[in-house]
């Protein structure tokens, strides 16, 4: 599952993610990170295996970071989507595919929030989710 880590300026200099990986021995995958200039803190979007979420969340929280779970990394507006599938071929991680009835489905676990599908969609049906 996707989580977003919010860190305050006082703890940004620490190698937080590395510490948590070493402590929990959970393999974390970083989708993106954004650290604001001087004193602004930052955010890191991380992919965590479902069953190890509690352990990872506790390790981060112990270090003073807050965590929000990202329910939907990409949001599709079904009223706008025409199920063309244009978004399928630009997705780097194969999130989007056709069902048997040619409607599109998304395997959001794989999404890295790159936004390529958002740009491709001719019907403005997609947006990158905020937590």
């Amino acid at each position, binding site marked *: 599952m996707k989580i977003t880590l919010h860190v305050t300026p006082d703890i940004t200099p620490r190698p937080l993610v590395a510490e948590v990986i070493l402590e929990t021995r959970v393999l974390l995958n970083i989708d993106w990170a954004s650290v604001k200039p001087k004193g602004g803190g930052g955010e890191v979007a991380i992919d965590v295996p479902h069953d190890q979420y509690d352990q990872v969340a506790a390790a981060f929280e112990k270090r003073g970071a807050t965590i929000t779970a990202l329910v939907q990394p990409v949001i599709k507006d079904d009223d706008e989507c*025409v199920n063309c*599938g*244009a978004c399928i*071929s630009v997705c780097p991680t194969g999130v989007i595919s056709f069902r048997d009835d040619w409607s599109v489905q998304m395997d959001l676990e794989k999404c890295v929030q790159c936004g390529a599908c958002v740009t491709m969609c*001719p019907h403005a049906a997609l947006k990158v989710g905020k937590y």
Partner: protein
Amino acid sequence: MAGKTIEDINAKIADGSVHVVTAEEMPDIVAELGPDGAAKEIDIVTTGTFGAMCSSGAFFNLGHSDPPIKMQKVWLNDVEAYAGLAAIDAYIGASQLSKSRGMEYGGAHVIEDLVAGKSIDIHATAYGTDCYPRKVLDTTVTIDDINQATMCNPRNGYQKYNVATNCSDRTLYTYMGTLLPDCGNVTYSGAGVLSPIYNDPTYQTIGLGSRIFLCGGQGYVTGQGTQHDPANNFATMMVQGDLKQMDKKYVRGATFHGYGTSLYVGIGIPIPILNADIAKATAVTDADITVDVLDYGVARRSRPVLRQVTYEELKSGMIDINGREITTSPMSSFHDARAIAGELKDWIQKGTFYPTLPVERLPGTGVECKPMKQIGEQPTVADVIAKRVITIQQGLTVEDAAKVIMEGNFNHLPVVSDKGRLVGIITAWDIAKAVAKNKRDKLDDIMTRAVVTADANEPIDIVARRLEQHNISALPVVDKHSRVMGIITSDDISKLVARR
């Protein structure tokens, strides 16, 4: 067998005994019963397609204002419509962009919003006459407030369409969607097995006067579409229908990022099965329809054909290009094409839709789709380049380069290897920066190595766009061995354009 007539078929619709199937169901039926048997069994085959059709638009009549106006220019939600018609008639085209919102909103979206019943702001200007004194008009209307709103699309329902990929090294934004560099993806369009014209490729039942499903309402084919090209299986049609009958689900404004707006139009054509020949044609499958895969990386009218594929291969989700499996995606919706063929089938079974035969079939011969006649020579790079280009040898110093640039009084200095091959470029600005940072010795440290170049045979317009895209002001012109033949600058191009 003796065929059926359209009257026979319509009588069966009236008494509820008509037998309708979609074009997806037909191949199996023909395989089982043979064309004769299928023609006896089946009365109508419905087709469907739902995709971007840029050559679409609508006429509308606003009704007269008081005092009256003869609109000279008119905007609907800030999208200009063509008003060179009678006083309050205008035509809005799908790909016209909004003055204020640009590509995000265009004529296609205005048409969708009208069909959805939303309010549209109208602004019109005029020069004023004795009979039409008013000069400015502002009002807000919905589709119910205006008189006629008639969709009239000069080119729709392409029989099939070329497939797009991109062999160049940068991302392209096209009417076929985003094309990733290095053949990173493949996009295609068209309904394949459900394609209206492919199910009647000799137009026995399609032409002026054929009644069709148009965006959820009943419309008509009004003749051949523009660029109709029967010889190459690129037939098209012109269609017309009443916007007031339409369903928003099947009229959708679209934006292709970096390209512009277009309208997704839903069309379903019923093919009355009058004889075995027609039945046989409707047995067409995705595997029978072949299209070219084109390299959109070449921005010319004739793009290189990389290979041919069938719709069956395209719909499998991957095709092989130069030994690599590349992901495909459709730009048109097969899901909705199917819904359209299904809905049309429903209408006929319920007796609310009666097919017609055309008064005049689409022409199958005697039409030719010609390229544009262009007068005057298209200038190429060779016509404008400064041929006496000065270059500098790799390995020299920043000071040496500075001297050459000073003496020559120009801005761009290509750097060449001892074999005369282009290895970099240096500008007066690069030198100024280097001097300011006290980096005066090796040229290699400060030159740009990934040089954007031009070919002597390229048209000027393509090179001008390349300069713009890379935000640079000059390109070395090289031959196929990377030897510098000259240099072309934006100044050269501006001078040429000023002369044109």
